[in-house]
């Protein structure tokens, strides 16, 4: 194909929208960038070394591509037609030749002979002119834009099928100086964007060329660069905090992301509240500020809250405006704190103990029962768990544990939890403490929903850990019992998260409990026992791979040798991950895979396993038998001590004898007695050394 020089241009696409939900913007921005890049690549329009940059604010998603070819390169295509003998009779073209030439758009004289494996055919070389980028983008981009994924979307034009997160209001599409004539949802693209609603007003923000984008909008009080906006918010938070001696704002990554995507032109002001509210629990204050008001909390050098907050504005104001906005925010916060204090004091009038009965009116699950029922069930499970670990040397305050389970759900009846549902458990713990129920009871109730995610910490105390285990396994078992097990992507009761938490608690606590112990404690009738156990094993596999980062083959190998004891599985996975690096070990893994294959073949052919002691073995076979017999007790002893690393090193020393065995010995010997002895020998080796992991699962290079 001939090489020609095609002019390059820059391309800008901006989709202007009504305010997009903050939580959806980052994903959509990235996806739009991907879709534009893929489209340009697919259409051979992306120049080498092209630079793709994405931007977003609540009102816009944008992509700037520096290095778009203004048209596709011309190309040649080879078409194959009818067989040569059909197309030309005695050197003269037939109707078939003429039809093919017409279809290909070439003269009959230009037809060529093509020879391939099947014979001789008529061929034609067709030149295809590259299409202009502008034309291609105009036809292809609308599909890409309307194909963006949104967690929620809407209709907005009467009688029109398109759905999007919010109505599309304007489109900028520029290829260098020219508007790309595309239309999406009835909106024609142009070169006019819009600025900040208030600071810039309704005048259009016109752009001459794509690379003007960032600067043109900056002049219209819109910072389209997300990273720059994030940075400016962090700096502004720092600056506002410096007005209070020794203070610092409390780091809150998710909140930063939210305010980054709620603002086009962020600034920050510091507000204050009355010190009397600092008597309320910090958890309540921070929840009001962060979750309800999107304020950052401010703390002193000792980490304790100070009576200030920071709010990120979507505007730049003068001193008067600042005073007005501060005043307004302070008023809202004061009213919320006042409510919280009212609830806090009101709730204390009825103790947690006196609330137990009212749990009968709080539904846990329609088909199962109330939280009163749930509490009774949890008690049964926790008693079984406590009995299992009795005498295992865990310092457990059983009285406090039982009390904590009894009262764990009572905070669901408090006004404060009704107002701040995200604080369930935490509020119960705080009330338990205030009502003098003891630190062990309070802490267990406080921690009961931990870990909330795989990154979250587990409950601090064994009582809290057991409460968390009992509550979750009871839920899982009961839900499985009424057919609510998760399927595919559907897990409406978040049972996977509950099971992940069980695995994590077992992994990171000192509780001498296995998955099997936990399942047994919950299965009074044992009806779903096996289904639940399989579910937990699958979650353990997820935990090892996705949370702890072990390779999938290591996890498969380890779990094949035992998936009950979580901490033991982790220890084995660690040892195996280190061991697999050695050449000897890789060879042993390969050998074990071979052994497994041979045994499977033997079984398929109906070959019986014999004993190596019954025949006279070849020297290499005898050496393997001797080495294995010698090593087996050593490995077993190391395994018992959980010295898995050393055990695996010991197994790796088998390599020379194993290699020699496979080198010299024909395992499937025609003599049934010898064959049986060989099979018996390798079966013994396999079983004797697979207790830590099934090495045959290890993928070797």
């Amino acid at each position, binding site marked *: 194909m001939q090489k020609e020089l095609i002019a390059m241009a820059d391309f800008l696409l901006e989709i202007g929208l*009504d*305010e997009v*939900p*903050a*939580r959806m913007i980052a994903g959509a921005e990235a996806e739009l960038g991907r879709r534009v890049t893929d489209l340009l690549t697919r259409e051979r329009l992306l120049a080498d070394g092209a630079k793709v940059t994405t931007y977003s604010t*609540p009102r816009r998603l944008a992509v700037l591509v520096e290095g778009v070819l203004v048209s596709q390169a011309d190309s040649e295509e080879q078409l194959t037609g009818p067989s040569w003998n059909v197309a030309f009779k005695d050197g003269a073209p037939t109707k078939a030749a003429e039809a093919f030439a017409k279809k290909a758009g070439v003269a009959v004289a230009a037809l060529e002979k093509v020879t391939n494996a099947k014979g001789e055919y008529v061929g034609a070389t067709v030149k295809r002119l590259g299409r202009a980028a502008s034309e291609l983008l105009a036809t292809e981009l609308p599909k890409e834009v309307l194909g963006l994924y949104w967690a*929620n*979307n*809407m*209709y*907005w*034009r*009467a*009688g029109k099928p398109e759905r999007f997160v*919010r*109505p599309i*209001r304007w489109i900028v599409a520029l290829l260098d100086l020219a508007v790309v004539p595309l239309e999406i949802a009835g909106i024609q693209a142009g070169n006019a964007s819009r600025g900040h*609603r*208030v*600071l810039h007003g*309704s005048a259009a923000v016109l752009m001459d060329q794509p690379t003007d984008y960032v600067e043109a909008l900056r002049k219209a009080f819109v910072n389209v660069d997300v990273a720059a906006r994030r940075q400016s918010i962090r700096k502004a938070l720092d600056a506002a905090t410096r007005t209070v001696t020794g203070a610092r704002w409390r780091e809150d990554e998710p909140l930063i992301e939210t305010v980054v995507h*709620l*603002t086009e032109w962020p600034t920050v002001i510091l507000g204050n509240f009355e010190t009397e509210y600092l008597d309320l629990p910090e958890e309540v204050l921070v929840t009001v500020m962060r979750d309800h*008001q999107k*304020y950052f909390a401010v703390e002193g050098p000792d980490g304790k809250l100070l009576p200030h907050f920071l*709010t990120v*504005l*979507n*505007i730049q*104001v*003068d001193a*008067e*405006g600042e005073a*007005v*906005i501060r*005043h*307004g*925010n302070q*008023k*809202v*916060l004061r*009213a919320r704190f006042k*409510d919280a204090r009212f609830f806090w004091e009101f709730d204390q009038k009825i103790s947690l103990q006196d609330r137990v009965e009212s749990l009968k*009116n*709080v*539904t846990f699950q*329609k088909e199962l029962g*109330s939280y009163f029922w749930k509490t009774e069930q949890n008690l049964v499970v926790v008693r079984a768990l406590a009995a299992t670990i009795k005498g295992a040397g865990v310092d457990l305050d059983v009285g406090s544990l039982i009390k904590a389970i009894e009262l764990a759900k009572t905070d669901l009846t408090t006004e404060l939890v009704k107002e701040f549902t995200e604080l369930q458990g935490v509020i119960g713990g705080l009330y338990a403490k205030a009502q003098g129920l003891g630190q062990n009871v309070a802490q267990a109730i406080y921690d009961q929903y931990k870990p909330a995610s795989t990154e979250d910490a587990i409950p601090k105390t064994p009582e809290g850990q057991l409460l968390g285990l009992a509550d979750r396994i009871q839920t899982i078992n009961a839900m499985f019992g009424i057919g609510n097990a998760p399927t595919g992507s559907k897990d409406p009761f978040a049972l996977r998260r509950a099971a992940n938490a069980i695995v994590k608690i077992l992994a990171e606590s000192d509780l001498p409990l296995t998955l099997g112990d936990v399942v047994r404690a919950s299965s009074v009738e044992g009806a779903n026992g096996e289904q639940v156990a399989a579910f937990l094993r699958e979650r353990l596999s997820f935990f090892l791979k996705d949370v702890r980062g072990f390779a999938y083959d290591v996890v498969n190998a380890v779990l094949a040798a035992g998936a009950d004891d979580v901490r033991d599985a982790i220890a084995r996975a660690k040892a195996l991950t280190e061991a697999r690096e050695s050449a000897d070990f890789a060879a042993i893994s390969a050998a074990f895979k071979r052994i497994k294959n041979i045994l499977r073949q033997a079984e398929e052919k109906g070959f019986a396993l014999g004993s190596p002691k019954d025949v006279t073995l070849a020297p290499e076979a005898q050496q393997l038998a001797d080495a294995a017999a010698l090593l087996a007790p050593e490995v077993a002893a190391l395994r018992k001590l959980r010295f898995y690393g050393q055990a695996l090193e010991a197994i790796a020393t088998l390599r020379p004898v194993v290699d020699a065995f496979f080198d010299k010995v024909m395992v499937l010997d025609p003599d049934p007695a010898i064959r049986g002895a060989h099979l018996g020998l390798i079966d013994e080796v396999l079983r004797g050394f697979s207790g830590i992991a099934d090495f045959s699962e290890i993928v070797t290079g």
Partner: protein
Amino acid sequence: MTSSQLLPNPKTIPLTFQELLFRLQGFWAERGCVLQQPYDVEVGAGTMAPETFLRVLGPRPYKVGYAQPSRRPADGRYGENPNRLFRHTQFQLILKPPPVNVQELYLQSLEAIGIDLSKHDLKFEEDNWEGPTVGAWGVGWQVMMDGMEITQFTYFQQCGGLDLDPICAELTYGLERLCAFMQDVDSVYDVVWARDPDTGAVVTYGDVRLAEELQYSVYNFESADVSKLWEHFNLYEAEAQTLLTQANGLFANAEASVVEKRRFPIMSTYELALKCSNLFNLLDARGAISVTERVGMIGRIRNLAVGVAKAYAAQQSG
């Protein structure tokens, strides 16, 4: 024209409660909206008034604004809480279909009531609305000003279980909250409702409504006769069901005359459903509905609302 020329400059003296309503009505009337009076049956929100619930159905464009007293029995606080009311007033606006500059119009309405947007922090924060008892939902925002929600802004997608086409924009201004914010008072009861232009004497929100809040709280939480409420509920529901059964028969009947269809009292049927909804709220405030009953009750009201919506749509298209 509108009364707005007669009002004081909002930049110096904040509007009274009634002036706020005048300004909003004036602003939207000037933009072609029908101004309606409050609906005279108890509702929990402006959405439930037929000017919204029924008018959003079907293809006919409509623009309407009205102040709707909205009753939420469980929210009553005997007049003791400065921010919570049994009955508050929503200025409800329906724009069907929504104009392309609906957000800009909304911002202009804020300026019209004296809010200088250059001195406030305004954000549109995601808040999707769902009304399970009326089978309605939409996507939209809570409009936040200086950390306070001043308006609920929803693009209605479905109502009475029916997809809307065209959709509409629903703007709900909480008048008490907005006015307390603008007048900078800590308690809604201190909001100036009216000011005598000659003497400057003021009548406050408390003067007008405090006794009502107290007495209705007593009724809602203490005096309402639970067994009578159930009886009322069942009676209204039964009558509504009877009418709906007739409506279903009528609108499915190809032989039925246009006149007969047009005169069918579907609007009155809807009113019976609204009665049920209010009685449900009262029963709830009395603590008379267990959690398990709750779901069932919501389903019963929803059935009526969805039935009415279907019949109304059939009536309109017939």
